[in-house]
């Protein structure tokens, strides 16, 4: 309560106060029922508020809060404000960002819950290690904030970024009793007990150097910590009834990465690559890369490329890894501004062996200053043993209505 009073009093004390946000409802229509999840309709409501207070000339407080509700029990019903995003369900009320940001000269220091984005590609970001995501619906992931201290020093065309994250925020994987978890044949029909997370107890750290050249830019990055995507420990149990206990845990990870953006005469070329090593015996070691080209022509925006992977040490983990699931894949996105109020977009992924396909078509229209609605359709096709293809029963339509303020 004291905390709330403090927050409400801040605008009076602060030099400037800025806010924005939106109220949004999202409706998902699934034509097919799947084993364990017969829902054809899932509704979600989100209230998002992003505010900032300029406390002093060089000191800023950011407070971003979310409130959520849904029809499918993907979100908690508990009345509490979540600060860590470490639970399996989405919290009903959460602080996405609460941070103090200080700057002087070329230095910027941000402490608290915040968003840290690394990398330059748009289709896949192997170097984006401090950016866990909410994968409850697999194909509509949203970034989660992390608790960290970030120091950035900018001088001329060079920027050095140092990050220390004492608290681990995992990516949220799909719920076991819902349609986005496709169980292997041998596990179907067995009762499954979700035993939650086994969270790492060590801090994570990373550094990134970025250089802006004349018409190009590149960066080198290093990360030492844990993969925010989980490995899965599935343990058969016999008592009280035969079943399966599922626990998620997180592999140690060290990443050496680089990214580059270089505009050529015809398009902008972007590339990003990272080499991952791990001391966790069950985790693979591999190189992941993405090469993409992008171009804007009149009202069109084209982004297309290829994401690849080369395994250097195969250990056959049981994991949930959507980033690796869309490697060896051609990826693309096209959008067209029909007029100042409306736009259409398509994004797609096609596995190089043709075993999986994902495509999303969307039309979006603004109505007045505040309202926007969009309607879309997601088509998923492929083989049951392919990352994309396993979700082939989950093609769906989406309708979104948003009021921004």
């Amino acid at each position: 309560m004291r905390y709330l009073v403090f927050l409400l009093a801040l605008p009076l004390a602060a030099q400037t106060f800025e806010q924005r946000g939106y109220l949004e409802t999202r409706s998902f229509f699934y034509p097919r029922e799947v084993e364990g999840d017969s829902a054809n309709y899932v509704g979600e409501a989100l209230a998002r508020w992003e505010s900032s207070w300029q406390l002093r000339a060089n000191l800023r407080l950011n407070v971003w809060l979310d409130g959520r509700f849904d029809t499918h029990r993907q979100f908690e019903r508990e009345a509490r404000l979540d600060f860590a995003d470490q639970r399996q369900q989405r919290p009903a009320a959460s602080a996405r960002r609460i941070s103090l940001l200080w700057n002087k000269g070329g230095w910027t220091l941000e402490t608290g819950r915040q968003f840290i984005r690394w990398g330059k590609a748009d289709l896949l970001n192997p170097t984006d290690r401090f950016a866990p995501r909410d994968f409850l619906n697999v194909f509509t992931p949203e970034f989660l904030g992390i608790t960290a201290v970030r120091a950035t020093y900018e001088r001329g065309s060079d920027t050095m970024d140092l990050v220390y994250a004492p608290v681990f925020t995992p990516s949220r994987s799909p719920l076991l009793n819902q349609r986005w978890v496709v169980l292997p044949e041998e596990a179907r029909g067995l009762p499954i007990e979700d035993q939650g997370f086994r969270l790492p107890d060590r801090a994570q750290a990373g550094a990134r150097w970025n250089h802006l050249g004349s018409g190009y830019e590149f960066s080198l990055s290093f990360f030492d910590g844990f993969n925010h995507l989980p490995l899965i420990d599935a343990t058969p149990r016999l008592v009280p009834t035969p079943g399966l206990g599922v626990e998620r845990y997180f592999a140690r990870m060290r990443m050496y990465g680089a990214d580059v953006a270089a505009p050529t005469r015809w398009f902008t070329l972007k590339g990003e690559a990272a080499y991952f090593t791990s001391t966790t015996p069950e985790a693979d070691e591999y190189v992941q890369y993405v090469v993409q080209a992008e171009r804007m022509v009149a009202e069109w925006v084209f982004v297309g490329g290829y994401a690849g992977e080369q395994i250097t040490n195969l250990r056959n983990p049981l994991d949930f890894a959507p980033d690796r699931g869309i490697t060896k894949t051609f990826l693309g996105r096209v959008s067209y501004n029909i007029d100042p109020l409306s736009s259409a977009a398509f994004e797609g992924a096609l596995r190089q062996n043709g075993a999986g396909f994902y495509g999303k078509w969307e039309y979006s229209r603004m109505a007045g200053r505040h309202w926007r609605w969009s309607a879309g359709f997601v088509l998923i096709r492929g083989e049951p043993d392919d990352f994309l293809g396993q979700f082939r029963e989950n093609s769906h339509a989406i309708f979104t209505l948003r009021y921004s303020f």
Partner: protein
Amino acid sequence: MSKLVLMLMMAAPLVAQSARDIVAESQKRAQANSQRYEGTLEVIDAKRKITMKRWIYERLGSAGEAKAVLRFTDPPEVKGVALLIHNHPDRASDQWMWTPAVQRDRRIAFQDRRTRFFGTDFTFEDLEERDVDRSTYKMLGEEAIEGAACWRIEATPKPDARSQYSRVLLWVRKSDYVVAQVESYRAAKLVRRLKYTQIERVQGIWTARTLDMHDVERDSRTILKLEKLEYNVALPEGQFTLQALRRLS
């Protein structure tokens, strides 16, 4: 005799004033250490549907070497979207777009600069400053715009300027060297016409308070009104960096 020589000597600068000199003088008179305004944009499409946008524009420096930040404040769904521009006298500007929803900046590549900026009729290139020496100039004559006598000058971007436009026609008012109209051509075809109106003296600098950009090909218009305009305001250099875009998002 000596009177005639004196008169000729006095007249010589006027005669010798080339098209380039006029453009340079126009830029010089508009020079300020910094500029800040709140812009209201009315975008009128070919079907005469009107959408409104607002941005805050801040610029540090001038004459081809300025740094500028343009930050949307309205409509609410684009609040916080920002464009950072670093102009260079000898080459095209560097531009980055910041999108708060994804917490990422994106470099606007040179070949993308002919696209419209966020649904307005200004292209990314139209938002950058051009150094006077990046074009060659030719005096085409004189013509009145809105009753004001103007020089009509043709500017042709030099090959290394890499502009989307093959030539630009400028109308510069003879009374105060303020640009009254600009027509931009691709090959022989007129693609954009920019009219400067409501010209007032602000802190000693003659300034157009209304800019009316007409995209001739699409038949759409964007009217930009400059409100709360100030020159020579204290703007720290650190506000015009990529880190500042992130900090203020």
